[in-house]
């Protein structure tokens, strides 16, 4: 009784603290607030969401059964299917879902102020993203670890399966183009950054050789050595940037884009053990460490947010990307709140490791909460900057002007004072020639992170090191994703082409490897090139396109989830996945429509093409830009049509089941009692 009363008091206190924090960030105007209010608001909401909402879903909607054996237990083979401790699976799952998205998206969305992004990151995760990851994970666990595409085919129909396949391939291609553009924008004209990132390639190869030939299996040891070498490369990069060799590592955006395309193709054709695996280990090592340090840094420094709660750019005229807060804030934040891509992980490796059904709540719902918290930290990193600095870094030359004086004057005229001298001093302190027009989110995040780190450890003297550490941290993620994503895309393409001509489906046949790798690299390379040559910085069109594709995939995942809930006789609880689905449909369809048909050339692809077509002087470059805009519009339209088909097929299936015209059955594997119950 006393315990119950204590718990009641504790949860009431958490609820009150959360409400107070949310009220503070929502209603405080005209004065700076401390970042800890964001942290407290997020943590309290996560705690309430996890304790009450996820428990409700687990008990009432999914009826998790601790007695039911999972595929990890039934199909245990020591390779894919391995019963694993829940905290270990949590770490594994979190490492797989956390990438550059939750870091970049919130930084870009900070142009609306800290409030809209923060609210969506917290609420979107608790009611949408965490639910999606949790529900898809348990549904895959109950189907022997089947993938999202397979579940869509089995539960919705053939169209659902086909669309999920095409959507996954499309999102991979668009995502790779968008993230590659972030690296290009972070490294252009930066010998220090370019040297550091270039050095990670031989370091990864060295790790691969060390791991295979000198210390087989000692991955943690090898990763620690790799990390020390990367730190040495960061310090060495500073020396290089001040030496005569600086010009060897100073590239323009198009040159860097070509280098990354060539790299992407070569890396995906190399043996996994030589480059992909060691760099993946290194990237994970740096990622987990940096996220932990960033959390400690924020708590230790408790920085003040200089960005206002809401900016004038909620009206859609923002320089970072154009478009009103609805729907673009929700599209831009992407993985920090809900990500369709997570459904691939939740129906990939993770379901094959889960030991007990009841643990899916911690792994699926809990890991997404952690990812959402990473997004909150990114938001804080962006908002600790002076707004003038934030806009100077993130605004393309096409909007603010290419000279430092013009850009500073334009940004100051928006009410965010900044001077060319201030930016020059900041660039000097981080070892860059300029920080103007460094679009893409990564440089702004790096400056914010360096600000937090340098105030916690090392002072101003280490600003440059911390800045390049942050750039390296993001670029390392992205290079790994380029390599891994190209391979995953290649396998999908080979699986598909194998139906047309069998040899093309043989994943070890070299001509097929080369041809399919070239197709995938060519596709994302085209998007990258398109972004690099875009006078508006590329991110303006690429990131929303990526966000739309990612959220459309989430729509497909939530269609699958809702269908399964309804077919399992739980139609009264279908709102759990139906509510985020309806919201995502509104957001993605509105965003897609606006990206295609909005008359503002900064928002609508077709309007932009039309404005270019009306220009007095037409060059080959203009025709190419017009073609790219029309291509973007067609891709957006095609994705929407595909998702409408899945939605229609799903709704018909729901109607058949709810009206009783079809029996409510699902294709779960039969119940087998777990052997762990005997041990208890």
């Amino acid at each position, binding site marked *: 009784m006393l315990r119950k009363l204590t718990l009641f008091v504790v949860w009431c206190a958490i609820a009150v603290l959360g409400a107070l924090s949310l009220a503070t960030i929502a209603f405080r105007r005209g004065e700076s607030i401390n970042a800890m209010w964001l942290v407290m608001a997020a943590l309290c909401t996560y705690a309430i969401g996890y304790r009450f909402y996820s428990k409700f879903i687990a008990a009432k909607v999914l009826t998790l059964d601790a007695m039911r054996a999972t595929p990890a237990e039934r199909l245990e083979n*020591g390779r894919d299917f391995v019963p694993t*401790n829940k905290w*270990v699976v949590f770490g*594994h799952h979190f490492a*797989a879902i956390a*990438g550059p998205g939750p870091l970049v998206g919130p930084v870009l969305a900070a142009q609306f102020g800290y409030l809209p992004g923060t609210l969506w990151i917290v609420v979107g995760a608790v009611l949408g993203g965490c639910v999606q990851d949790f529900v898809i994970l348990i549904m895959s666990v109950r189907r022997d670890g089947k993938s999202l595409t397979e579940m869509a085919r089995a539960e919705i129909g053939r169209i659902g399966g086909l669309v999920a396949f095409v959507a996954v391939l499309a999102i991979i291609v668009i995502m790779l183009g968008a993230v590659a553009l972030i690296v290009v924008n972070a490294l252009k004209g930066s010998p220090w950054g370019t040297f550091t990132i270039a050095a990670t390639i031989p370091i990864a190869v060295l790790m691969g050789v060390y*791991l295979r030939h000198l210390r087989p299996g000692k991955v943690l040891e090898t990763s620690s050595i790799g990390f020390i070498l990367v730190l040495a490369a960061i310090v060495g990069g500073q020396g290089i940037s001040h030496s005569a060799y600086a010009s060897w590592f100073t590239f323009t955006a198009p040159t860097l884009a070509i280098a990354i395309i060539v790299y992407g193709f070569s890396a995906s054709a190399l043996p996994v053990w030589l480059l992909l695996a060691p760099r993946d280990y290194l990237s994970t090592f740096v990622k987990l460490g940096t996220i932990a340090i960033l959390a400690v840094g924020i708590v230790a420094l408790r920085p003040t947010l200089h960005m206002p709660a809401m900016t004038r750019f909620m009206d859609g005229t923002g320089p970072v990307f154009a478009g009103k807060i609805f729907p673009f804030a929700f599209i831009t934040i992407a993985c920090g709140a809900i990500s369709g891509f*997570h459904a*691939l992980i939740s129906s990939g490796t993770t379901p094959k490791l889960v030991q007990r059904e009841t643990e899916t709540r911690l792994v699926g719902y809990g890991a997404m909460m952690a990812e959402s918290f990473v997004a909150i930290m990114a938001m804080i990193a962006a908002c600790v900057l002076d707004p003038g600095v934030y806009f100077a870094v993130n605004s393309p030359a096409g909007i603010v002007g290419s000279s430092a004086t013009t850009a500073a004057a334009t940004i100051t005229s928006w009410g965010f004072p900044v001077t060319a001298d201030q930016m020059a001093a900041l660039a000097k302190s981080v070892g860059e020639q300029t920080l103007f027009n460094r679009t893409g989110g990564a440089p702004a995040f790096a400056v914010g992170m360096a600000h937090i780190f340098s105030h916690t450890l090392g002072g101003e003297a280490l600003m440059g090191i911390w800045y390049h550490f942050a750039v390296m941290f993001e670029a390392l993620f992205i290079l790994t994703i380029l390599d891994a994503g190209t391979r995953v895309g290649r396998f999908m393409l080979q699986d598909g082409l194998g139906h047309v001509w069998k040899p093309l489906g043989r994943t070890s046949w070299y001509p097929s490897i080369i041809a399919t790798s070239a197709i995938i690299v060519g596709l994302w390379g085209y998007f990258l090139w398109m972004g690099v040559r875009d006078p508006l910085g590329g991110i303006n069109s690429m990131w929303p396109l990526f966000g739309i594709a990612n959220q459309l995939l989430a729509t497909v995942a939530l269609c699958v989830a809702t269908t399964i809930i309804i077919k399992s006789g739980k139609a009264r609880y279908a709102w759990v996945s139906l509510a985020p689905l309806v919201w995502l449909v509104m957001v993605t369809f509105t965003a897609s429509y606006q990206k295609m048909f909005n008359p503002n050339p900064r928002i609508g692809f077709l309007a932009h093409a039309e404005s270019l077509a009306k220009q007095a002087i037409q060059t080959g470059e203009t025709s190419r830009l017009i073609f790219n805009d029309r291509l973007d519009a067609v891709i957006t339209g095609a994705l929407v049509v595909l998702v409408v088909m899945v939605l229609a097929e799903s709704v018909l299936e729901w109607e058949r089941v709810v009206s009783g015209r079809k029996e409510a059955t699902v294709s779960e594997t039969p119940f087998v009692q777990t052997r762990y119950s005997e041990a208890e």
Partner: protein
Amino acid sequence: MRERILRAGKTMREASRVVMMALREIFDENAYARFLASHGMANSREAYAHYLRETNGVRERRPRCC
């Protein structure tokens, strides 16, 4: 007081053990150990090469999120 310190120490040890276990799983060291156990092999260059050959297919197809 002493009991509390001992309990805290035990909790810390347990937490570090779980963190190390998670790291070993994330970094595939446990997977390699399981491979050695299931094949009755000792750690060696050849065993690791064999392990890589068997697991490369899975590793290559493992998606990483954005």
